[in-house]
């Protein structure tokens, strides 16, 4: 059981690190917008590239922390009826959902997302019209990366569910509640 928990922590580690980075990206995005606004309003500098950078950052922020949020149980649930279901049944359902829904979906996304980014890399795609940022494959890679991190987070939660199911006295809640 301890081994499973330790392995679960290993899987969760990248999710935590990337989530922290995502938080910092929020500050970076703020700085970029500020720079863009000041430049445009007061110095009449063109900012097409900056605006493109803004949605690049937004895109990375939007998709890179799914796994982390799952580990923290931050994804919304409708628990009107399920509060009457036993704890063990809930853990079972969670495990089924991870293996039947989350992992296949994210594997599909990781695989097709990889091809999506690879195509962009091979064609050395740039922004439409060529006035924006080059190397579009970088931002496109966040999709497979996001899927990969979600798979790690999902597996980590699954292991903790398993431990909570087998030895409830060791782990009563598979999620990391302290924030």
């Amino acid at each position, binding site marked *: 059981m301890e081994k499973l928990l330790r392995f679960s922590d290993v899987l969760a580690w990248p999710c935590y690190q990337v*989530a922290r980075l*995502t*938080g*910092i990206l*929020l*500050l970076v*995005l*703020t700085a*970029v*917008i*500020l720079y*863009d*606004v000041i430049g445009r309003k007061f110095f009449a500098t063109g900012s097409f590239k900056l*605006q493109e950078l*803004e*949605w690049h950052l*937004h*895109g990375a*922020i*939007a*998709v890179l*922390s*799914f796994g*982390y*949020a*799952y580990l*923290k149980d*931050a*994804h*919304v*649930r*409708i*628990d*009107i*009826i*399920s*509060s009457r279901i036993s704890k063990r049944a*809930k853990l079972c*359902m*969670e495990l089924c*959902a*991870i293996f*039947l*829904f*989350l992992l296949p*979906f994210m594997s*599909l*996304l990781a*695989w*097709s*997302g990889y*091809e*999506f*980014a690879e195509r962009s890399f091979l064609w050395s795609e740039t922004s439409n019209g060529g006035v924006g940022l080059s190397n579009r494959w970088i*931002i*496109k890679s*966040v*999709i*497979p990366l996001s899927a990969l991190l979600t798979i790690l987070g999902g597996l980590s939660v699954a292991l903790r569910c398993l431990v909570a199911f087998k030895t409830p006295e060791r782990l009563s809640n598979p999620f990391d509640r302290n*924030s």
Partner: protein
Amino acid sequence: MIEVFVDILPVLMFGTLVFGLFSGLPVAIVLMGVSLIFGLLAILMGDMRVIESTLLPNRLFGGTIENPVLVAAPMFIFMGLIMEKTRIAEDLLNTLQRIMCVVPGGLAMAVVFVGTILAAATGIIGASVVMLTVIAIPTMIERGYAPSLAAGTVASASTLGILIPPSIMLIFMGDLLSLNLTKLFVAALTPGLLLSTVYVIYILAISILKPKVAPNTKLPNLGNKKNLWQQAIVSLALPLLLIIAVLGSILAGFATPTEASGVGVFAALLLGLARGRLSLDTLNQAMDGSVKTLAMLFFIFVGATAFSYVFRTIGGESFIVNSALALNFGDWGLLVIMMVMVFIMGFFFDWIEITLIILPIFAPLLHLMDLGDHLAKSDMIYWFAVLVAVNLQTSFLTPPFGFALFYLKGAAGDQLQMSQIYSGIIPFVLLQVSVLLMLVIWPDIVLWLPRELLK
């Protein structure tokens, strides 16, 4: 046999989703699972080709990432969390209550006022109800306010955030219905202010008619006058200025919502810093909270993208349009049906699920709808979006299921009985319904300001 099955496939898919949502599993994962199951069925029956399933990254990239409109969402959420964690919001309410306690019902009015201007503070209904409950309910009850009035005020004021710009819900709605975000914000402003005005009038009226429910007492430790004014400037004027500047620059067309959101975050950081409340720890909390909220939002976005793609492929869209036409209720009937559906769903779901799952399903109907002389067709979707927002807010407040009421009870604990919450909220629900009817009857309440402001 197979033919019948194909025909009702969209119904089955939607039914499976609703059933799955109540399982208590994360909404996003349920959406993904339902999409997988029905995508597989569609492939088996030849409605969808395998290769189509690999288009998901394209759709995600176009819908979520390469989407300049949505950039404002993470920034406004971040701004709100900074204001919450540096306790700017709390100070604002406390100071306002001190100043307004001389007016009948002043404490309650201060709550409405704060709810209105802090609408941006949290995009998520549950979170804003909890925040306002924690900072407002104890003072009001301590000052002898009737618990029912306190509960009604807090619940309705804190749900104003889904309507009053910069509402995160409006950002998503504008994106899903391809609307001009600035125009949508402007359109939502008058109805939002109308609602808070109506609340204030009601509170004033009831406090004068029944002084017992809102006793007019002075707060203790008021300090000297000079102190009060100093406090008023620091904790009232500055945040107010921030919000007015952010909103004003959008509404005046000086800045795009994205620009205003970035500047808003910066100003909120400065404000926190100036008050000595912005430690590294607070900043970390605000970042962590924003990251979690955003991941939650966009995870559903991913699931909903897959869901609506499969739903459309198996003929869901034409199914909806055809059945709506077959019902033959006319355009007004259709509007009523959509509103009733949104209202009922508001009992169980937050706006996130409703907007992301239902709006794409409604969208084709909206484009078909024609209310003739009642309002111009080009304005109709803006009007509809505002109606949905007010409708949802009403639904969140309506007993016995009202979504906001549960959060209120949860955050207030033993201070409020459920029965007090129910009786307190009813007058506010009636106010909501009357405003909703006014908006339906006079669409100009919604459309006048954008017409004048954005020529």
